[in-house]
């Protein structure tokens, strides 16, 4: 990320502090979706934003929020570009971001996990995958590693719905991508 001037660094920080519209505990910087801020002249700025999922409807709200914040900071023209390369990955979420997700009751994605679904064997009713040898998805409420998948898709595309077998609470898991 090129931050040539002090003002660019300041604008990057401002844009990065914008909360995610769907997960307001996270900032855009912590989510890892803000790629670059480029200043052209004194008051024209271009921002590169990458979507989490291709169809993520939050991108438009994020763009508007970034525009509003940067205009309030004296920028006359703000352009937010959507960039797809390199593709966003849950590994781009910062350690503070993961921490905040867990505190918010959402199991954070595992780091360096091979993205994509984990193959699982079908039980008689619910599915309970053989936990990957590396790292189980822990319950964000009680910390138990004994959790099962209820549905691959939850309230948003980026989450799966799971249930804790120890405390019985259902919870969202920010699934690896």
């Amino acid at each position, binding site marked *: 990320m090129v931050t040539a001037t002090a003002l660019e660094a300041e604008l990057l920080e401002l844009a990065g502090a914008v909360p995610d519209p769907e997960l307001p505990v996270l900032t855009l910087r912590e989510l890892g979706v803000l790629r670059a801020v480029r200043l052209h002249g004194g008051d024209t700025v271009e921002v590169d934003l990458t979507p989490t999922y291709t169809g993520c*409807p939050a991108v438009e709200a994020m763009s508007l929020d970034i525009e509003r914040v940067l205009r309030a900071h004296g920028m006359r023209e703000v352009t937010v570009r959507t960039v797809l390369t390199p593709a966003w990955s849950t590994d781009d979420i910062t350690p503070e971001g993961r921490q905040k997700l867990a505190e918010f009751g959402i199991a954070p994605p595992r780091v360096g996990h091979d993205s994509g679904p984990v193959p699982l064997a079908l039980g008689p009713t619910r599915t309970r995958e053989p936990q990957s040898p590396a790292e189980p998805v822990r319950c964000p409420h009680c910390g138990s590693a004994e959790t099962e998948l209820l549905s691959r898709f939850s309230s948003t595309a980026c989450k799966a719905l799971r249930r804790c077998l120890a405390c019985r609470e259902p919870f969202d898991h920010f699934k690896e991508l």
Partner: protein
Amino acid sequence: MTATGPTARTAAPAAVPVTAALALGDDALVLSHRLGEWAGHAPVLEEEVALANIALDLLGQARVLLSLAGDEDELAFLREERAFRNLQLVEQPNGDFAHTIARQLYFSTYQQLLYTELAGTEGPFAPLAAKAVKEVAYHRDHAEQWTLRLGDGTETSHERMQRACDALWRFTGEMFQPVEGLEADWRGMEDRWLESVTDVLGRASLTVPQGPRTGAWSAGAGRQGLHTEPFGRMLAEMQHLHRSHPGAAW
């Protein structure tokens, strides 16, 4: 879709093969619309959410792809049936839940193979393919798990799943017709598709359909703009609002 959305502003590189952008974009758009028809009708709440999320991923892909070919709203809402280049498979009505799952299994297996190929090229579709292939892996997994559950479930679910796989089989040959402007090993993809689908159906105690994989038409199919009868009615519903109220926005 709004013309002012951020995706619409993504600069279109000069050398985008329009036919290919329409083929890929129309597949995603049409299947997204079909899956959206499940809203309020899915058998359980989790599936309501899952199918809507898959539809949303596909809509996101469609927006990027159609924007490479032109104005996304004009392309989605103002083209006639014959101008759409999607596979006939994706326009088939939802049918029962097993039908939808069979369509998902056939299509997501294909899309995962195709996007994997495109992600490895230097072409204009590589960025989208590299991003979307990770989403499609979840779509395929969803379809596979349901195929196993229905195929290896009750007598009724098995029978319905088999019927769905049989009914849609004749739309699967079209997927491997080379598309102008797409660099891919179509023969190799077809072999890998058959291998993958055969494996899933086998584990689901289902029989791989034996019938022909294309219809009797020699003039082509969806990729040539020739569609099946239900597609016109789907388009009428999808385009009705925009055509009645040109330029309407939320």
